[in-house]
C-alpha cells in the first residue's frame, strides 16, 4: 500500500466543473480529504508525493493572483509539475480561439488543467476538447466550486457541521459565481441559505436558489451563524446597480451595528480581495470573528484534495 492509493472510492468524477455536478457524499468526501491536507500543509515538510510525475497546467484567462497561487501551491505540495500559462502574453492575444488553445495544450499531455475564464460555460467547453481532467477555477458568473468547498470546510471547522446552519450571503448576488456555487453546496448540505442585497443586485429567480431573500440587511442577518460577504466590483456596480459605494456601505456594508443582529458567535467570511470600507468595515475584517485569512489556508487544502481526488481516480480507472 503506497500513499498514492486513494483513501476513498466515493469520488468518481473526471472533472470538477461545478458544485451542481456533485452529490452530498462527494462533497463530504472532498471536505474530509481536505481536512487531511490541512495537516500536511501545517507540517514543516509539506511534501506529499501523490501527484509526482503528473503535470498540472494553470490556465487563467482572467487575472487572479490569489487563486492561481493557491492552485500552484496545492499542486506543488502534492509533487506535481505545475505550469502557469500566462494567457495575457500567449497566443490567445494573437487571436487563437479557446478550442485551439485547448487542443494545443492537450497535445502536451497534461494530467489536469485548472481554468479560469471570464465567460460562463467556457470551462465546460474546454473540458470537452481535452483528454485530461479539468478544474473550474471560476467561469464568468456561473461557478467557482473550489471557493464553495473551501468556504464549507472553513464553516465546518468552526461550527462542526453545515446541516441546519443559517448562512447569509450578502452583496452582488447577481454577478457572483461565488454566491451561486455556495448556495448550491449549502443547499445540498441542508444549511439554511439566505441572500441579502439591494434588488438591483438580485438575479431573477433567486428565490428558487436561496431559502430566504432579504433586501434589509438587519433582517437578513438576524440569528445568522455565518455571514458571508461578497466583493463589490466597484467599476461595474457604481451608477448602474448602485448609486455609489458610500450608499452601499451605509445599507449593505458589514459593520459592527449590522453584525450585532447575527448570532453572537457568528463567523464573518469574505472570498477576497476585500474592498475595506465598501462591503466591510476594516475593524470587522480584522476582528476575531473574521475567518478570512483561514479561508485562504483552507483554499490550498481544498485544492490539494480536489487535485488528488481527480487524479487518483484517474489512476484507478487506468
Amino acid at each position, binding site marked *: 500500500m503506497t500513499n498514492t492509493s486513494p483513501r476513498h472510492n466515493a469520488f468518481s468524477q473526471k472533472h470538477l466543473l461545478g458544485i451542481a455536478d456533485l452529490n452530498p457524499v462527494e462533497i463530504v468526501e472532498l471536505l474530509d480529504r481536505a481536512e487531511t491536507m490541512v495537516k500536511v500543509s501545517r507540517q514543516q515538510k509539506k511534501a506529499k508525493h501523490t501527484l509526482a510525475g503528473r503535470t498540472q497546467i494553470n490556465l487563467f484567462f482572467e487575472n487572479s493572483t490569489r487563486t492561481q497561487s493557491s492552485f500552484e501551491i496545492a499542486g506543488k505540495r502534492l509533487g506535481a509539475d505545475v505550469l502557469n500559462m500566462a494567457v495575457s502574453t500567449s497566443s490567445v492575444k494573437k487571436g487563437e480561439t479557446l478550442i485551439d488553445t485547448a487542443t494545443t495544450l492537450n497535445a502536451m499531455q497534461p494530467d489536469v488543467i485548472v481554468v479560469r475564464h471570464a465567460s460562463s460555460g467556457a470551462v465546460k467547453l474546454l473540458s470537452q476538447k481535452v483528454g485530461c481532467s479539468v478544474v473550474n477555477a471560476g467561469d464568468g458568473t456561473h461557478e467557482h466550486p473550489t471557493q464553495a468547498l473551501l468556504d464549507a470546510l472553513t464553516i465546518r471547522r468552526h461550527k462542526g457541521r453545515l446541516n441546519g446552519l443559517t448562512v447569509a450571503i450578502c452583496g452582488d448576488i447577481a454577478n457572483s459565481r461565488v454566491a451561486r456555487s455556495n448556495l448550491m453546496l449549502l443547499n445540498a448540505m441542508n444549511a439554511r441559505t439566505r441572500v441579502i442585497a*439591494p434588488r*438591483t443586485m438580485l438575479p431573477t429567480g433567486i428565490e428558487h436558489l436561496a431559502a430566504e431573500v432579504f433586501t434589509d440587511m438587519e433582517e437578513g442577518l438576524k440569528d445568522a451563524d455565518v455571514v458571508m460577504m461578497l466583493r463589490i466590483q466597484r467599476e461595474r456596480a457604481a*451608477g*448602474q446597480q448602485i*448609486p455609489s459605494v*458610500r450608499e452601499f456601505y*451605509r445599507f449593505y456594508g458589514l459593520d459592527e451595528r449590522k453584525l450585532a443582529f447575527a448570532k453572537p458567535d457568528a463567523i464573518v467570511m469574505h472570498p477576497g480581495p476585500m474592498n475595506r470600507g465598501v462591503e466591510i468595515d476594516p475593524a470587522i475584517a480584522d476582528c476575531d470573528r473574521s475567518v478570512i485569512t483561514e479561508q485562504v489556508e483552507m483554499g490550498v487544502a481544498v485544492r490539494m484534495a480536489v487535485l488528488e481526488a481527480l487524479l487518483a481516480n484517474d489512476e484507478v480507472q487506468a
Partner: protein
Amino acid sequence: MSNQLVIKNARIIDPASNTDMHGSILIKNGKFAKIIEGEIELPEGATVHDAQGRIIAPGLVDLRVFTGEPGREYRETLKTASNAAAAGGVTSALIMPDTNPVLDDAALIDFVARRARDTAEINFYPAAAISKGLEGQDIAEFGLLKEAGAKAFTDGRNSIQNPALLKTAFTYAQNFDMPIIHHVSDANLTGSGVMNAGLLATGLGLKGIPHIAETIPLDRDVQLAEATGVRYHAAQISCAKSAEIIARAKKHSKRISAGISINNLCLNENDIGDYRTFFKLAPPLRSEDERQAMIAALVDGTIDVIHSAHDPQDMEGKRRPFAEAVDGAVGLETMLSAALRLVHEEQIDLISLLRTMSTNPADLLGIDAGRIQKGAPADFIEIDLDYPWVVSENDLKSRSQNTAFEGARFSGKVTATFVSGTKIYELADA
C-alpha cells in the same frame, strides 16, 4: 390654557372620509381634536373663527412645485413660493429637484428642508433627483436621500430616455419603498416641437409635439412599473391615449397612478393665439377634445392628482419668439380657482375635485396631510365657492408673474389658509 381654535359655522368637506356636512371643528395644539355636526361647546379661552357657512376643506397638496432655491432665487425663493401657496390654499408642496445645484445629494435635501422650515409657512417636502445631476445617466443615492427627508424621486422637468436606467431606478426605488414620479416625454419624438401637433401648429408655422411623444414613453414606464412593482406616478398626462394606458394599467396594479397639470385641464391650444409664450408649457396644451377627455379621465378616477405645475420663470425667458421661449407657468395661486370652473360647469363634483388636490397626493407621498380627521395636523383652507375675482399678475405673490391665467375671471377663492392650526393667509375683503 392650551392653544385652542374653534372653527364654527362651516361646511366641512373631508374627501378622505367622504364627509360633506355643516359643523364645527376644535383644534388643539395644531391638530384636529374634534369634528362634529352642528355647534360645538366653546372651550374657555379658545379662539373662534367664524367660517360664515363657507367650505372648510383639507389644505391642498401640490405634487409639482418648482422654486429657485437654491441657485435661482430671482425667480422664486421658498419664502415667496410659500406666500403664493398660502394665497392659493396649498399647505403642502413637493419641491422639484431642478435647482442649482440639483437636489441629488443628501446634504442638499437637508439644506432645503431646513431653509423651508426657517423661511416658509407651508410644509415643503423635497423630491430628490432620480438621476445624478438630472443627466439621465446614473441613479442617485436613493437610500441616503430618503434618510435625509426626500419623499419621492423625480427628474422634474427632465424625462429619462434610457429604459435600462429606468429599470434600475424603479427596482432600486422599490428597494427603499419610495415612489417614482416621472414626466414622460420622448426626446426624439418631441424633437424641436414647441406646441401640440395639429392644424393650429401648422398654421402658426410652429413645430408640433405629437401625442406619441407622451404615450410611447408612458407605455414603457407602465411596463417597467409592472415588472418591478415600484410605486409609479406618471407626473402629468395630457391626451386621451395616455389616459387609456393608465386605465388599463390600473386594472392590474394599485401602484400605478397619474397626475395632470391644472393647465391641461382648464386651457387648450387655442389659448396660444398669437404666439403667447405664457401658454408655452410642458406637456403642451392640447386640443379641446383632448382637454374634455382629460376631464372625463379625472371624473372616472383614471387621473388621481391635479397639480399646479408651478414653474416661475423670469420675463427674459418668456419675452422671446415662441419657439425660443422657456416652458412653464406659475400656478400655486390660481390652481384651485381654475379647478373650481369644472365644478361650476358641473363637470365634476366638489368633493371628488378636492380629493385629487389633497387626499390623493398626500397618500402618494405618505405624508400626514390631506384630511380633516382627529389627530391629523390642522392644515386646512376656507373656500368661498362663489367669490368673484379677476387674475392680475401684479397681485400675484410669487416672485415671477408668468401666469397662464392673466385676466381670467374666476368664481371661487381661498379666503383663509391654516397650517397646524395657525392662520397664514386671509383674503383682505372676504
